[in-house]
């Protein structure tokens, strides 16, 4: 339990997807400049992470690894299988949401297809794959068991949501400032993210 809480807090603040590993910025930079859409995108990413990371965890430990059902080390197939699972799940989630909750679909609709190529999802799966080998007794990043995988996915998703909403809020205010012409738009966005990443660096070393 203690390990799970520590993993959760770490994955939100210390190993923040955007500020520590720059994952999933492309879709954000291309899509949105206001808080509402950023929030929608964040919720969609968290949702997809919560489904794909545990599935890929089971795939990695029960099928691909040397003590899986085939008793051979198939991990070299992991890139192809992970991305296929992500693309498939995104399609499936889109269809299910459209069928059962049209209002949620209207809110998330445009973002769902984009998520298949969002680096944050693939990134979380690859980090999860790396962390399976770590020892939970010594490292608070270790993922041992399906519960940890769910906790990690939730933490990574919420961290991404937090970062993206904060950045969108800053960007909204940026419209009223006098930025040098060539720096407007993309340039100043990068510098803003850089300054925010510096602020998030204070969280490193945080442990419970």
């Amino acid at each position, binding site marked *: 339990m203690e390990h799970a809480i520590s993993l959760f807090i770490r994955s939100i603040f210390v190993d923040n997807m955007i*500020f*520590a*590993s*720059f*994952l*999933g*910025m*492309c*879709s954000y*930079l*291309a899509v949105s400049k206001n808080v509402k859409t950023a929030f929608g995108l964040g919720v969609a990413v968290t949702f997809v992470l919560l489904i794909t990371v545990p599935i890929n965890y089971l795939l990695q430990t029960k099928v691909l690894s040397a003590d899986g059902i085939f008793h051979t080390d198939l991990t*070299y*197939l992991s*890139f*192809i299988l992970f*991305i*296929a699972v992500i*693309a*498939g799940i995104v399609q499936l989630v889109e269809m299910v949401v459209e069928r059962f909750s049209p209002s949620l679909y209207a809110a998330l609709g445009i973002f769902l*297809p984009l998520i*298949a*190529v*969002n*680096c944050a*999802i*693939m*990134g979380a799966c*690859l*980090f999860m794959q*790396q962390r399976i080998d770590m020892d939970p007794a010594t490292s608070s990043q270790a993922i041992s068991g399906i519960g940890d995988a769910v906790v990690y996915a939730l933490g990574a998703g919420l961290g991404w949501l937090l970062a993206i909403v904060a950045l969108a809020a800053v960007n909204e205010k940026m419209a009223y400032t006098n930025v*040098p012409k*060539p*720096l407007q738009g*993309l*340039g*100043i*966005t*990068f*510098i803003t*993210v*850089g*300054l925010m*990443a*510096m602020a998030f*660096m204070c969280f490193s070393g945080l442990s419970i």
Partner: protein
Amino acid sequence: MNKLFSKENKAVFLAPLNIDNPILVQILGICSALAVTSQLEPAIVMGLSVTVITGFSNVIISLIRKTIPNRIRIIIQLVVVAALVTIVSMLLKAFAYDVSVQLSVYVGLIITNCILMGRLEAFAMMNGPWESFLDGIGNGLGYAFILVIVGAVRELLGSGSLLGFKLIPDSLYANGYSDNGMMTMPAMALIIVGCVIWVHRSLNKEEKK
């Protein structure tokens, strides 16, 4: 032979290097660009890997573009890219193990690099294999170019060396110069890319609306 290097093909190859640069102008593939640039060597290796993968995935998709059903094209593109990335990742592990450890998950993340999907969708799906190959290599090199600039600045200011060779003389350190540790932190990568965009846009003013 003349047809292979016609004017249009030259433009296809050269545009992404400067005025249509994937990172600076098309805003593609930023995620991995920042994480691997704390030193020059991984930046170069990453840039080359992406160049090879964009080139060949463009050719493959361009060759089979008429047979791909439209509805499932994204998944097919992803699988082709993932297969190429797997090959590159194995080659890196075999021939450049240290760098591949440094790059860690970012080699795998080339799959979701938006440059690849962007070029496949926007170019390879409607052009022949040779043009697509040039377009892929051009975009890969445009990406690598930015990575090298950012990597060089960060390594020079952050650890006083380039490709591991000390460039700042010891006498400077003796007189109180010290490396800027901040440069090796992720945050500075973003700020340097911001500055590169600033310079690029100032130089190419007439291009902008």
